[in-house]
């Protein structure tokens, strides 16, 4: 490792000597080498844990107990899968359940947040500014403090083990309203709304057919974050769902920690892999938008 770095350092130095300002560039190159080394180290740190997990998912328990670290896959994938699914872990069920909950709550969150933001941008109403201050204030409330009351309320109504209570709360997503408003304010020409009104369009029609398409880029990024957030949520499903048929992916994962799989290391790694795989695939395709979304949120926030 050290040799290699020296090598690239010397090579880089050779290039830099051609440039006019030699002293300044020498330190620049040294800094650059340090930066690249650290970045490559961090890259390995991000990838290796998942790679070890993928590989161990294909290895037998005896292999893992022999040497826990291996970078080369083995052939016990099917065997691990049989052991995994023979017990309480049902990856397909969990995947489907998570998909249902996450999709529905994402659609609701995106639609109603856009609607609320639209009301902020287009209409002149008395309480508009007050309502915006309200949204800003509500944004800061930590959700977990409401959880005991939420559980008691749901339990009283007899609606535990019902997905509705995991989906409907996403109608109120103050962060998303805030983001949508910031996006809509410069992006929406009011003339479009006015000319649509002259043509006789109803307000809901204008929002659904004209404004929503304009908001597509913002909706896309917010939908990704809403979906991932809902998919990864552990706390709420854990307190509301008690039927195994209804378990979401994160609850399935939490089963891997119990006594059921105590020594079946290969199966545990496979179970973990199955929960990570959909996310990584989605991430590979959408990373560009996700990174852009993270960056955008910060500037506006």
């Amino acid at each position, binding site marked *: 490792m050290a040799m290699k770095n020296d090598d690239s350092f010397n090579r880089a130095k050779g290039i830099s000597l051609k440039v006019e300002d030699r002293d300044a560039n020498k330190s620049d190159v040294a800094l650059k080498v340090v930066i690249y080394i650290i970045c490559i180290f961090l890259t390995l740190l991000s990838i290796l844990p998942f790679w070890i997990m993928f590989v161990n998912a294909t290895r037998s328990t005896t292999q893992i107990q022999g040497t826990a670290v291996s970078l080369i896959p083995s052939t016990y994938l099917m065997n691990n899968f049989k052991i995994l699914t023979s017990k309480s872990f049902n990856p397909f069920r969990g995947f489907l359940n998570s998909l249902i909950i996450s999709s529905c709550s994402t659609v609701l969150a995106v639609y109603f947040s856009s609607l609320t933001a639209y009301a902020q941008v287009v209409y002149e109403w008395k309480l508009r500014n007050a309502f915006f201050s309200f949204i800003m204030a509500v944004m800061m409330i930590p959700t977990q403090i409401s959880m005991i009351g939420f559980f008691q309320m749901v339990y009283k109504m007899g609606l535990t083990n019902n997905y509705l209570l995991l989906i409907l709360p996403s109608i*109120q997503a*103050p962060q998303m309203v805030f983001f949508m408003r910031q996006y809509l304010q410069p992006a929406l020409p009011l003339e479009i709304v006015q000319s649509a009104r002259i043509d006789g369009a109803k307000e809901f029609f204008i929002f659904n057919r004209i404004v929503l398409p304009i908001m597509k880029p913002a909706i896309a990024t917010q939908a990704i974050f809403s979906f991932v957030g809902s998919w990864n949520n552990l706390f709420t499903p854990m307190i509301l769902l008690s039927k195994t048929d209804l378990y979401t992916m994160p609850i399935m994962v939490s089963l891997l920690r119990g006594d059921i799989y105590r020594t079946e290391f290969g199966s545990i790694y496979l179970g973990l892999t199955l929960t990570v795989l959909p996310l990584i695939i989605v991430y590979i395709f959408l990373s560009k938008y996700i990174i852009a979304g993270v960056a955008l949120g910060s500037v506006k926030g």
Partner: protein
Amino acid sequence: MKRKSSYAKYGYIFSIPFFIAWLVFMLYPICYTLLIGFTDLKGVGNTNFNILWDDLFKNYKFVLSTPSFKTALVNTVIIWLCNFVPQIILALLLTAWFTDKRCTIKGQGFFKVIFYMPNIITAATVAILFNQFFAYPKGVVNDIMVGLGIFKDNVNMLNNGTVARGIIVFIQTWMWYGYTSIVMISGVLGISPELFEAAEVDGANRWQTFFRITIPCIKTVLLFTLVTSMIGGLQMFDIPKLFLDGGPDNATITTSVFIYNQAFAGSYFYNRASAASVIMFIIISILSIIMFYMLRDKDEVALRKLIRQQEKAYKRKQKGL
């Protein structure tokens, strides 16, 4: 005028779904939590309660005097601080490197994507994955440590509270530094390039540019990161719950885990969990308000100072003319 007011009603109509959902799913549960904190509500599946009129703050007194709540509170703050500080240092370093115009780093897009990746992975999965890595007697980390000759023999690291806490700190840092970096880099990219050009013309070196121009310009972004990280960090649940379930010996218990364990395990003390939630809410609110107050004040003071200076300079100029 008449037309305008006829459209104004849509402002209300379109905001109603949000507001109703907020009332039902946020305000009511919060008030209900507050109420339960003053009652004797406990026991699995129980929804009937009596308000403790003779000793209204009984649950609060209990929670505040329980050693495990104090441990949880201290742990939560320690874990948050210990992951926030290295996270922000690393993020600032990466920001300085990635936005330095004098030496461009190639592959920035790739690095950002990779650094952010742990953040989108289910926290529950990450917790159990790391639990497996640190398994004893045969685990990935033990294997590596023995292979490198750092450990003579396999060690049960998770038995040690400090090490366990350290691992949670590491996981949190690992999951969040990418996010923080991207947020800050985009903050810096939003600064007018003329400022940097002017600094270069004036002969400012890297350090001066970074500390005198970059940092002051991204102050709001820093505050945003600080506050969101704090609100999220003080509610930390998934990782401490699934990594070691608060163990060993409550060394990794956080307030959220404490609340969960009070309400949904053992004797199902919904009342005590509610009291703990309210205490947590008060703490988070106070800290947020302090942070906002501190920064807002400083900014305004600085701005006023600047305006005054400019006024003086302007007057001097006029006199000179």
